[in-house]
């Protein structure tokens, strides 16, 4: 039997013992929790910084005049983004560093940026176990795919309008902005080609040396600088020329892209016309057997003064001459409207039997775009050449169908980006945003009730590009910049 006095003595101070015992368990647990929690927080931050560095480094591979400069830029950008996302002495860490490695050869047309990040994190409570600190390592990887891009520029006559407040023509502003756009691509890796179109097209094949003068002393930038704006808007011919280059390169390892800038509705189609006579609108001897361009206008059924009325070969050997006066004797036909007056379409209707059901490349001219779009609501009238609006409808349908052919190439998977420039030319010839969105398969089609949603649903699964509207030429720089950013996002993943 225990004596009460002894128990009382033993009870004295037992709370202190209990507290001490509890603390001896609690404090290490708290300490372990604190140290491990801190390490977890630091690792999370380090991982975010490493991811950011890899992605920014991959994006920066487009910056630089050659591959070496691009890789130097990528390395310095990656390290800068790492430092920017992982503050010095974050939670008392030391020795934060990122090692950047670039692999440009393992995968064709794809460069990877690998970031190995490391930092030393202090331990506080675990020091009782003689652990002063802990080293944390993380690895991140991102890459940039090379692009094969055809830049398609509209040089139609309407581009000559002077833009208010600038003293410059839309053509001149476009030249400056398109050249700046080239700066967002990687010489030596990306292949860039050029198509310039009015009534006819001029094509410069894609090359990785797009900033280096060729045998004739031309670069793509210098060619853009030499553009004179003239003629109709043969958008389908231009898109076909761009697609032809994509097919010729036939790269499944690059991202294939067509970027179109246009300031108006398509107004011309290229086809084998049925020629009844070569009398009234032909200004010389010609051979009508080749593919030809028919240009339509929309002003009271008449062609514009000096417009490219009639037939001419669809491609241009150079940008140096106005694109309607190009025919060597006996090769194709050239029909010319006298300058200074409207010429009745009856001149052409006498010579041409009607509009064809397909253009030269097999794109349907009667529909379906103009029958589905609320802005048009009917098929092209192919039987009456004097109906200039019918020619525009045919041209619209041809370019829509050409874009459809491009997007549905399941092997090359080309993306189409479009820029619609309004504000110059006749209001009824401004670009149709819905047509350009459909051509690009812009995901924003889904938000347009009616025809937009119909087009969106019809084109699900096809490559999705983007359309950007430029309300006037001063907005072109931003439009090109937006497209460059979107392409950059697609290339750098």
């Amino acid at each position: 039997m225990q004596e009460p006095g002894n128990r009382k003595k033993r009870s004295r101070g037992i709370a202190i013992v209990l507290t001490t015992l509890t603390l001896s368990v609690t404090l290490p647990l708290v300490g372990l929790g604190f140290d491990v929690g801190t390490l977890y927080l630091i690792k999370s931050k380090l991982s975010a910084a490493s991811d950011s560095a890899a992605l920014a480094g991959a994006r920066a591979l487009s910056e630089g005049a050659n591959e070496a400069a691009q890789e130097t830029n990528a390395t310095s950008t990656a390290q800068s983004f790492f430092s920017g996302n992982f503050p010095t002495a974050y939670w008392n860490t030391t020795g934060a560093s990122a090692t950047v490695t670039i692999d440009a050869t393992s995968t064709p047309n794809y460069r990877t940026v690998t970031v190995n990040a490391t930092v030393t994190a202090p331990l506080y409570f675990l020091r009782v176990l003689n652990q002063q600190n802990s080293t944390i390592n993380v690895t991140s990887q991102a890459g940039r795919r090379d692009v094969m891009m055809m830049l398609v520029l509209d040089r139609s006559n309407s581009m000559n309008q002077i833009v208010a407040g600038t003293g410059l023509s839309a053509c001149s502003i476009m030249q400056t902005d398109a050249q700046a756009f080239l700066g967002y691509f990687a010489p030596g890796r990306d292949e860039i080609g050029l198509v310039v179109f009015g009534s006819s097209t001029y094509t410069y094949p894609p090359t990785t040396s797009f900033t280096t003068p060729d045998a004739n002393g031309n670069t793509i930038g210098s060619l853009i600088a030499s553009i004179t704006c003239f003629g109709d808007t043969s958008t389908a011919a231009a898109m076909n020329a761009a697609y032809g280059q994509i097919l010729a390169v036939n790269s499944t390892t690059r991202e294939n892209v067509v970027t179109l800038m246009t300031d108006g509705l398509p107004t011309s189609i290229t086809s084998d016309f049925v020629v009844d006579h070569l009398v009234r609108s032909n200004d010389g001897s010609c051979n009508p057997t080749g593919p030809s361009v028919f240009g339509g206008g929309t002003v009271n059924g008449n062609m514009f003064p000096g417009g490219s009325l009639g037939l001419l070969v669809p491609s241009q050997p150079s940008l140096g001459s106005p694109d309607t006066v190009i025919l060597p004797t006996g090769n194709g036909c050239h029909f010319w409207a006298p300058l200074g007056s409207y010429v009745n379409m009856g001149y052409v209707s006498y010579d041409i039997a009607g509009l064809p059901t397909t253009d030269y490349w097999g794109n349907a001219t009667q529909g379906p775009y103009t029958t589905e779009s609320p802005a048009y609501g009917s098929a092209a009238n192919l039987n009456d050449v004097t109906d200039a609006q019918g020619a525009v409808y045919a041209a619209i349908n041809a370019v829509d169908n050409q874009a459809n052919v491009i997007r549905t190439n399941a092997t090359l998977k080309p993306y189409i980006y479009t820029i619609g420039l309004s504000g110059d030319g006749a209001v009824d010839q401004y670009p149709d945003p819905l047509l350009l969105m459909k051509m690009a398969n812009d995901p924003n089609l889904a938000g347009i009730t009616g025809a937009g949603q119909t087009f969106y649903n019809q084109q699900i699964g096809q490559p999705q590009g983007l359309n950007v509207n430029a309300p006037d030429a001063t907005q072109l720089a931003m439009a090109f910049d937006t497209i460059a950013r979107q392409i950059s996002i697609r290339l750098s993943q």
Partner: protein
Amino acid sequence: MFRKRNERGNVYVEFALVASFFFVPLILGLITVGIAVLRNFQVNQLTRDVGHMMAKGVDFSQQSNQNLVANDLANGLSLQANSGNVTGSSSGGGVLVLSIFRYLPSSCGCANAGHVVVTERIVIGNNSLYTTPFGSPASINGSGNVQNYTTDTGARADNVLSVISIASGGLAYMTEGDFSFTDLGVVGFITHLGAFNRAVF
């Protein structure tokens, strides 16, 4: 006998006193700080994820994407999704400011050539909590696109270069998150808990 019976339980009383003045505040403080650390971690993760998604092309001007951020990624942080806008509101306990910056090259031929400009800005949540110091553009459209960023001097954000180095022509995607944890705190001891984080991709 009476005194002995009184002394029984003294141990528990003393322990309870020690617990009241030491363990209970300690545990409450640990819980509070623990939750705050967890939320801090969540804010870090949130800004990282949103920045990463933005850099990969996710459009946060879309209401559905804002809802995804507010209701899922920021679950428990009291971030209110906008109602069909890109400028935020005055409610909720947090805000996210999303910005895209471009270093306009000299070849731009525009007024802002050679400057870093903000090209897109979307604010999600309580815009009274935080104002970003990086550019103050005159006009932003409903999709978050800064209007006239090639010419608007207010769109210039050269101070971004103090955070990150961007090469000429380069891009940066920034997410800033500021959150106030007004529901947390131990009266008189721990107040004004919150978290701020910035992620740049």
